[in-house]
């Protein structure tokens, strides 16, 4: 008998807890970029700024005077590569530059959806890259069988 009276109580408590949990999560809705504010200052308008050609006059970008193009430097030396599996935040749908310094030509595999392949020469080269779908995207050197960076695209 005790159990039957207490069951609604338990249910209520459960719902309240889940409700609280839900509210806690809701705080993030208005400003989804709060967690990665450093790199995300240029991403709120990502959906509109996909037309890259207009970048000369960024009229809609009032906070940042000159949006810095995100750059990831990658160095291949023999059997090693730097970085080595780091995670890097990357804005969604914007062009980023991979600046590659290598002692031998090779190929990077970008495990985005869909997959992309980037070939580079020996010496220093700059490869542009755009990821149009949010997620964790691994950039892998197939020759070395190493993950170079994990791009956190949002």
């Amino acid at each position, binding site marked *: 008998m005790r159990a039957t009276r207490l069951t609604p109580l338990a249910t209520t408590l459960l719902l309240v807890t889940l409700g609280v949990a839900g509210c806690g*999560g809701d705080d993030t809705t208005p400003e989804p970029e709060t967690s990665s504010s450093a790199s995300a200052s240029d991403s709120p308008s990502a959906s509109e700024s996909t037309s890259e050609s207009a970048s000369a006059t960024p009229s809609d970008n009032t906070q940042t005077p000159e949006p810095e193009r995100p750059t990831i430097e990658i160095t291949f030396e023999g059997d090693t590569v730097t970085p080595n599996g780091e995670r890097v935040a990357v804005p969604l749908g914007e062009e980023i530059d991979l600046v590659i310094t290598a002692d031998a030509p090779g190929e990077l595999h970008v495990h985005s959806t869909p997959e992309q392949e980037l070939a580079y020469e020996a010496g220093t080269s700059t490869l542009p890259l755009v990821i149009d779908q949010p997620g964790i995207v691994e950039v892998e050197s197939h020759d070395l069988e190493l993950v170079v960076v994990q791009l956190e695209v949002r």
Partner: protein
Amino acid sequence: MGLPTAGRDLLAHGIGGAKDLPIPLELAIAGAVAALVVSFTVLAVAWRTPRYDAATSGRPAPAWLDRLTSSTAWRVALRVLGFVFFLYVAAAAVFGQDTLVNPFLGVFYTLLWVGLVPASVLLGPVWKAISPSRTINAVLAKVSGSDPEVGMYTYPERLGYWPAAVGLYAFVWLELVYPHSTEIGPVRLWCAMYIGIMLIGGALFGNRFYERADPFEVYSSLVAKLSVWGHRDGRLVIRSPLANLDTVPVAPGLVGVVAVLFGSTAYDSFKEASPWVKFVQTTSIPSGLIDNVALLVFCVGVGVIFAAGCMATGVGPDVRRSTLPDVFAHSVVPIIVGYIIAHYLTYLVEYGQTTIVQLSDPFSRGDDYLGTADLEVNYWLSFHPDFLARLKVGAVIVGHVLGVIAAHDRAVRILPRRHQLTGQLSLLVAMVFFTVGGLYLLFAA
């Protein structure tokens, strides 16, 4: 090697492209707090006399549904459907090209391994109904005039589910550790060995072998206990998922099955984490060894923690302490399903669609046998990471709540009265550890 076939070289380490973003920290914490509060609430206020009883629970399903699902025509139709699909995919595996657009890989890793879970939760034990090895065994028995239920020997009950646990481990090893897991040849070999062992086992021990030793059937039938479909005295009944879960047949090795399922999924999250990737890539220990050890540690670790949680209680004279992990193992099933949903939902939805597109062209020649070749894959889920994160945490928490209730009911049934509350504490701690650990991996990996 070195062939310019895009598919072959591209994915040395997995299929399905981008992975999910980590869930936000505040959501992970909210989920963890909810798990804690709910656990102790259940312990404090839930019923004190067992509520679920397989012999009486459930109400009869509509008579027409019972007649339909128990009819020979229905069973044969499902077997034929399953077997046709099996032959279709086997043809792709044998005659198709060794590229990632061969649907065999997607069917094996996505539709079968992950799709089995929602299919079984919604429809009941689906693998049992369509399993090709059961079908072959039944046909052979029909031809030779014997009974597929019985084999040459009686299945040794001491073995219990252990063969299935080993089979499941063989699967997750292939998927998560074996470096060539996305090449057709090795996966085809794995499947051939699986079918071969199933046929020999079926001939030796009859259908009992499939109930206890077929990894996919054990997985599917276990998860199907969270569906509303059950049987009582040969009649189809509709039960609450919790009452249904209570009817999981307890046998040795059940704890091994749930440990492999939960441990391997946790390892799959963990191995994507950047610090782990960095460690594996910089250490001088061969990565094959590390991966093997890590998967084993996760599975054995889950089993040991759970077993310790179950056994750290006072028991009555009629209960052997060493049987407790298997007796309570059913309560991990909802936790597994919640975590599988959290971990694999995007993969199932998005790579599942890709697989259905690929299925139309099994030999990679530009065919369109099923008319699905031109379908567009819908990536809505990936583009709504906030919604996805909430869904994941919700699934984990619901799974945790169901698991705690299931364990509580089992505890009040088998533990002596004075140990009923304290005896559950250690198990509760183990479950909270699994859930919070799972949430942490969703946040950090």
